[in-house]
């Protein structure tokens, strides 16, 4: 029996409708003996590329299609419904839906893309206008959801015939009627009677019928998941008494479909063997839909913008590129240097070999345009290794000087598209996008999409809502989970200490967990990718469906990053980098107040003050080197040149940390260990890093030197190292080649060991150089223009730390923090001269940080300055009442006299007066001043909490100051005094949590890193997994922490505390207040903090020794095997990690935080940089 071809199948890309991934569908189709399968997602083609690839993998022929809502021919009269007072209106899904399948190769695919683009063109939900039908290249299936199907369901074949006419007119022979039987009763969708009516109607009208199963999921038993998805889409709970999913919409095999066909034709009154005819028709339709993924979708091809658009004029792109590069040589003054000329010609040859000249010109054009707009732009990534990029002005650093290799970026042997990433100011990223669209035209440019998929928290929320669970309860459960994959929900419950309490009541929630796991990784929304921009020739719209993004209305391809690469579309990554914006703001501030123009790209390299600052590890806010781990590393490495910075950035990566490159490097650098090379021939590439392999470039060089192959080949080999299988092959090849070149066995063995350990997870030097440039620039700004630097940081918030920590840092570094004042503050943070000699610049807080202020309001306030009185301010700046009251609370209106509460009262009355129309009389004393009303002023604690609530910053003083007395009672060591603490000493530390991370560490265990700020400095904490049972929950879910731990010292500037017990300080303060010290003692004696494990003894010290460099990794193998070992996740780089590491920790907003919604501390998914 031949396999059945399903013509109507949706995947998870049909948002909140399909329950299976396209890969799974292809796999099942193959298992069930089908030779063709269509993917007809709702309103999208986003799954097509994955589906095509998966089908190719399992040997099933893919058919491409889409299921679109179409405009009804005649307007449906609908009665206006009353607007609900609560809960919102129902989601309107009334539009009829029709399935389109691509038929004639590329033409069919282009037509599909056009239809999808057209359907998304209007406002609101996608709807295909009737005028968009062209009737070419497509097969149309009118199923139960179409207008014709609905008329049949309603028992109106006459009406169905009338509705069929326009379809027949438009599509003629390509029209099919689709019969679906899901075993339902009645005459609705999926009922036997409707299916039979459809088949009968088809015969009567002379339209060919086909059989489909309207597949929503791959396997039987997934009906409940479909119910949850339906509920999430319609935003209503599942009604257990209502119509649930039939459970039949799975990818049924041929016998089951034959059975269905027989039932249907019998019900339609035909003989049983007519079923064969129905199946034949279906098969014939599938056979008609021929679209070849390679030829017709354009997979594997490459499309660049036409040469005349990128400044080539009538010349070929290659010639234009060559002449621009040569011009660059002269402009940059390399004209007399032969090595540069040779390298340039080599590179141009490689580019010509691949025919990528247009690509380089395109990027150069974009960079030129961006620069012309006055936006800071920098290249990053391996593209920085190309001299041509440097000559075209794309990359800033000179690759020859820094020893960067073209081969790492592009070589004859490399067949994939090279990628050049450019960084621009984040605040002006959209401007850049618009400029690119303006330059190349909307038919060539689109942004790239990024599916947002279900992870555990969202899955819990949606399933909870579908199951009618209490929203507060759902919220609590969701928040207690870290940001992990949904499929790990139950495993996490078993294993994570901070979920222990929840695990106890697990049974209570019944089917919740099962359904949550079933949603794993299904797309639940589509967002614009934060950096990718597609550039193509004018045929872009025939190869990708383009939809407008929801917020900005930019054109966005439905395909994501990987799809786009597979489709051969040129993607340029334009990253918005906040640090670039911050630096631009700082420079602009300096120019505004002093007229001094700083060219950051031209600051003197090797500035001693800058390096002094970096070595002091007070690098908060500096690009790439501000994280606790980096501060520790910088303290030990003590960089003094640009190259040191490059090395520092490269070392602080999971790879080098895992391969234990850090310690030998530090030892050799400080002369504590001799510099060793596996062979004198390798001194060249390894000299700069004291014989330690840090960069990809060095591996390429080692392979090239030892085997004599070219660097291009060496790069290919290096890439192969990440795959264990090919690693073995490369090892053999390496040994043979090296032996042939006369290296002895010992050298080969030692070198191979290094190369092997390095795997592929070193760091590309070109990346590091590109990173180090803004690192140096930001540190330079911090050293020379601290106030402006902080103003930039606070305005654009680039780093990992909350703003309040930057403010504390500014205070510590002697930059006066000036309060918010409506008469002085600008929209963005500014600097002000505080005293003439010595010139001290202060930082004036900005209006944009006030909670809930809109851009327009901030601008209006700033434009109207100065204001003479409260009334003047009210009338001209026209703030909303809540905003004005917030301003009063934080003292921004103090200049108008009276205390802050009196001001609030006046504001309320002004508001009332404005609303009432009558001006009302204002009690003013002495004209300008506001009269006091006798209300009690805010206490100092209230002021602080107002600042935290309104600005998310403790602007006037550090919030820990209030608890100083209690902390002294407890004997807590301040961050400043901690610097003098001995190694191994047990101490108590306290502070406000500034950052929490659980980065991947080498031992594969989970370590919680946290940073506390206590006003005198920062304390870096590490919690190893023996303390997690006792501490994890407290650390994740509290804001103010009291921690007991052991001091770890690994250098003069390297200090951290290994925590063994943690308490919520806010609770303790309350207890102290209410019950006195005895209450505190009772709390400390209780079980909440610690389980009484040997906390301060040698356990801590031992751990510290195991901890190796920067408290991150412990030597592999030394850690005892734990039950987690078999759950470790192996990264594609070959790097193993704890399943719960590298995730955003639980408890985004602790109840204690005064402004729980806003960012008061940082939690990152644990990126090492």
């Amino acid at each position, binding site marked *: 029996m031949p396999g059945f071809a399903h013509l109507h199948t949706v995947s998870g890309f049909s948002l909140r409708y399909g329950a299976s991934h396209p890969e799974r569908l292809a796999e099942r189709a193959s298992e069930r003996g089908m030779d063709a399968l269509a993917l007809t997602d709702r309103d999208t083609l986003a799954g097509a590329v994955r589906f095509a690839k998966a089908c190719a993998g399992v040997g099933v022929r893919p058919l491409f299609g889409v299921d679109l809502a179409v405009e009804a021919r005649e307007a449906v009269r609908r009665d206006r419904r009353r607007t609900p007072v609560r809960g919102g209106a129902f989601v309107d899904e009334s539009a009829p839906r029709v399935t389109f399948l691509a038929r004639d190769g590329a033409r069919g695919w282009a037509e599909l893309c056009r239809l999808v683009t057209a359907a998304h063109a209007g406002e609101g939900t996608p709807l295909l206008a009737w005028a968009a039908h062209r009737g070419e290249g497509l097969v149309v299936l009118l199923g139960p959801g179409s207008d014709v199907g609905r008329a049949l369901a309603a028992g109106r074949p006459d009406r169905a015939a009338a509705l069929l006419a326009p379809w027949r007119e438009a599509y003629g022979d390509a029209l099919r009627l689709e019969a679906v039987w899901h075993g339902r009763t009645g005459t609705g969708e999926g009922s036997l009677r409707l299916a039979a009516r459809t088949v009968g109607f088809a015969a009567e009208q002379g339209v060919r019928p086909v059989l489909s199963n309207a597949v929503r999921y791959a396997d039987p038993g997934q009906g409940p998941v479909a119910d949850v998805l339906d509920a999430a889409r319609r935003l209503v709970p599942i009604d257990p008494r209502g119509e649930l999913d039939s459970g039949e919409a799975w990818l049924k095999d041929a016998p089951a479909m034959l059975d269905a066909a027989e039932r249907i034709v019998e019900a339609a009154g035909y003989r049983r063997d007519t079923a064969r005819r129905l199946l034949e028709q279906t098969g014939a339709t599938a056979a008609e839909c021929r679209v070849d993924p390679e030829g017709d979708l354009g997979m594997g091809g490459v499309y660049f913008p036409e040469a005349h658009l990128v400044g080539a004029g009538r010349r070929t792109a290659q010639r234009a590129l060559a002449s621009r590069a040569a011009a660059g040589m002269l402009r940059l003054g390399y004209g007399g240097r032969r090595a540069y000329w040779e390298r340039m010609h080599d590179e141009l040859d490689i580019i010509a070999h691949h025919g990528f000249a247009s690509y380089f010109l395109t990027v150069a054009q974009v960079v030129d345009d961006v620069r012309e707009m006055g936006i800071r732009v920098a290249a990053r990534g391996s593209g920085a290794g190309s001299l041509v990029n440097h000559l075209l002005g794309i990359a800033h650093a000179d690759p020859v000087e820094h020893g960067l290799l073209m081969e790492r970026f592009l070589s004859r042997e490399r067949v994939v598209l090279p990628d050049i990433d450019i960084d621009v100011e984040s605040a002006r990223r959209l401007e850049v996008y618009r400029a690119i669209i303006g330059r190349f035209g909307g038919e060539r440019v689109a942004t790239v999409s990024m599916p947002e998929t279900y992870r555990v928290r969202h899955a819990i929320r949606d399933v909870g809502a579908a199951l009618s669970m209490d929203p507060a309860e759902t919220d609590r459960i969701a928040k207690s989970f870290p940001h992990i994959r949904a499929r790990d929900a139950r495993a996490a419950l078993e294993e994570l200490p901070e979920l222990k309490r929840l695990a106890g009541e697990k049974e209570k929630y019944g089917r919740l967990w099962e359904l949550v796991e079933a949603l794993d990784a299904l797309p639940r929304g589509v967002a614009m990718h934060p950096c990718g921009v597609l550039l193509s020739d004018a045929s872009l719209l025939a190869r990708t469906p383009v939809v407008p993004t929801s917020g900005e209305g930019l054109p966005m391809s439905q395909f994501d990053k990987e799809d786009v690469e597979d489709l051969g579309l040129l993607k340029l990554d334009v990253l918005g980098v906040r640090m670039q914006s911050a630096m631009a703001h700082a420079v602009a501030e300096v120019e505004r107040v002093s007229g001094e123009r700083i060219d950051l790209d031209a600051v003197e390299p090797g500035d001693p003050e800058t390096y002094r600052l970096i070595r002091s590890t007070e690098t908060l806010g500096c690009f790439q080197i501000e994280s606790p781990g980096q501060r520790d590393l910088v303290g030990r490495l003590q960089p003094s040149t640009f190259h040191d910075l490059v090395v520092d950035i490269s070392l602080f990566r999971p790879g080098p940390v895992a391969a234990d490159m850090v310690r030998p490097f530090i030892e050799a650098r400080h002369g504590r260990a001799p510099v060793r090379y596996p062979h004198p021939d390798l001194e060249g590439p390894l000299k700069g890093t004291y014989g330690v392999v840090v960069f990809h470039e060095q591996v390429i060089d080692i392979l090239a030197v030892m085997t004599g192959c070219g660097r291009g080949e060496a790069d290919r080999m290096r890439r192969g190292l990440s795959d264990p299988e090919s690693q073995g092959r490369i090892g053999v090849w390496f040994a043979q080649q090296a032996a042939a070149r006369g290296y002895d066995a010992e050298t080969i063995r030692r070198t191979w060991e290094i190369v092997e350990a390095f795997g592929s997870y070193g760091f590309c030097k070109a990346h590091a150089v590109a990173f180090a440039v803004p690192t140096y620039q930001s540190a330079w700004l911090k050293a020379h223009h601290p106030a402006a630097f902080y103003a930039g940081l606070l305005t654009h918030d680039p780093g990992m730390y909350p703003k309040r920590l930057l403010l504390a840092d500014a205070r510590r570094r002697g930059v006066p923090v000036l309060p918010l004042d409506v008469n002085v503050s600008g929209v963005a943070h500014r600097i002000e001269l505080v005293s003439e000699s010595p010139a001290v610049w202060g930082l004036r807080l900005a209006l944009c940080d006030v909670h809930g202020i809109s851009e327009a309001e901030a601008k209006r306030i700033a434009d109207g300055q100065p204001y003479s009185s409260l009334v003047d301010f009210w009338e001209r700046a026209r703030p909303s009442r809540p905003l004005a009251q917030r301003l009063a609370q934080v003292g921004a209106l103090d200049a108008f006299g009276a205390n802050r509460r009196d001001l*609030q*009262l006046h504001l309320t009355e002004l508001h009332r007066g404005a609303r009432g129309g009558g001006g009302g009389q204002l009690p003013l004393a002495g004209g300008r001043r506001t009269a006091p009303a006798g*209300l009690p002023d805010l206490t100092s604690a209230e002021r602080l909490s107002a600042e935290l609530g309104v600005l998310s910053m403790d602007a006037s003083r550090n919030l820990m100051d209030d608890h100083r007395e209690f902390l002294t009672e407890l004997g807590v060591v301040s961050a400043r005094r901690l610097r003098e603490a001995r190694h191994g000493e047990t101490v108590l530390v306290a502070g406000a949590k500034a950052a929490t991370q659980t980065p991947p560490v080498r031992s594969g265990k989970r370590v919680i890193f946290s940073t506390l700020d206590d006003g005198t400095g920062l304390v870096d904490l590490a919690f190893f997994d023996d303390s997690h049972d006792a501490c994890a929950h407290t650390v994740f879910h509290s804001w103010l922490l009291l921690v007991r731990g052991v001091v770890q010292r690994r250098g003069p500037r390297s200090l951290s505390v290994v925590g063994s017990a943690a308490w919520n300080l806010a609770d303790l303060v309350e207890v102290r207040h209410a019950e006195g010290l005895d209450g505190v003692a009772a709390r400390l004696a209780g079980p909440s903090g610690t389980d009484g494990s040997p906390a301060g003894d040698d356990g801590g010290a031992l751990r510290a020794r195991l901890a190796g460099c920067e408290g991150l990794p412990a030597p592999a193998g030394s850690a005892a095997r734990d039950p987690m070992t078999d759950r470790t996740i192996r990264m594609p780089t070959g790097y193993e990690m704890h399943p719960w590491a590298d995730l955003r920790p639980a408890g985004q907003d602790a109840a204690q935080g005064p402004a729980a919604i806003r960012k008061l501390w940082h939690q990152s998914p644990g990126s090492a940089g």
Partner: protein
Amino acid sequence: MTILCVRFQLPPMYEAALPGLLGLLEEFTPVVEALPPDGALADLRGAERYFGRSAVELASVIRVRALARYGVDCVIGAGPGPMLARVALRDARPGVTCAVPEDAVAEFLAGKPVAALPGVGAATARTLDEYGLDTLGRVAAAPLSTLQRLIGAKAGRELREKASGIDRGRVVPNAVARSLTTERAFGIDELDPARHRRELLSAAEETGARLRAVEKVCRTLTLTVRYADRSATTRSRTLKEPTAHSAALTRAAYGMYEALGLQRARVRALTLRAEGLTPADQASHQLTFDPVDEKARRIEEVADRARAKFGPRAVIPGSLAA
């Protein structure tokens, strides 16, 4: 020290027991004001002299009797005026009567939150807190004009007087029944309007039956819809004429429900409250020439009799029978 404020610890929905408990208080003084659903004020001015005991001592007697005769515990606050007695009740526990010292009223009040004052609701308390007037001491210290600017002239004056301990209120004897509540809860988030209406019908029928049983009519009907997120919407409607007629109540309830236009709201409960209860024999009724209305009322009367005989579910509307 003559006024007691008593709160009986009745289990919820047990308001029927209140009249009996009020009778208990009336054994001490005729001046008893009911504070439904579970409290009462009693003026013991004469009783102190008659029983030869102070109000606080009498409070213990009242508690013992309530426990002995009705098995109901109570908490009691005592003070020179009804307002102070009610404030005192907040601090009382079973067995510990809290009394406001007559000579230190202001001090007693000073530390109390503003919400402790009867008549200061959530909205007023929020306003006052916003301006830092979170305790009665601070309210008393604030300038009168400022208070009046905050919450209005009359309210401001009264608030300041109360906060300073001036209690002008007195105990006004009255009878119980002021309102009657019927609730219908759903086991799941219910969106189906048909089911909502069905429950409304059943609640209105029950309200009518209960009203007729105690021979009362209601003037106002209030519908409260509670949602899954524990929030609620409330709508009130004053009836054309005070009535206990189920059909009229149902009509009013449906009207309020339709006006909400609910679609996706996750309803967890519907509550109907009949307010402004007055004796049925004092109610006026507009006669019509339409015999249907008359018939409906007579059927209702018969149905009530049947229910009295065979239980509340003996006669129910057909749509509820399924």
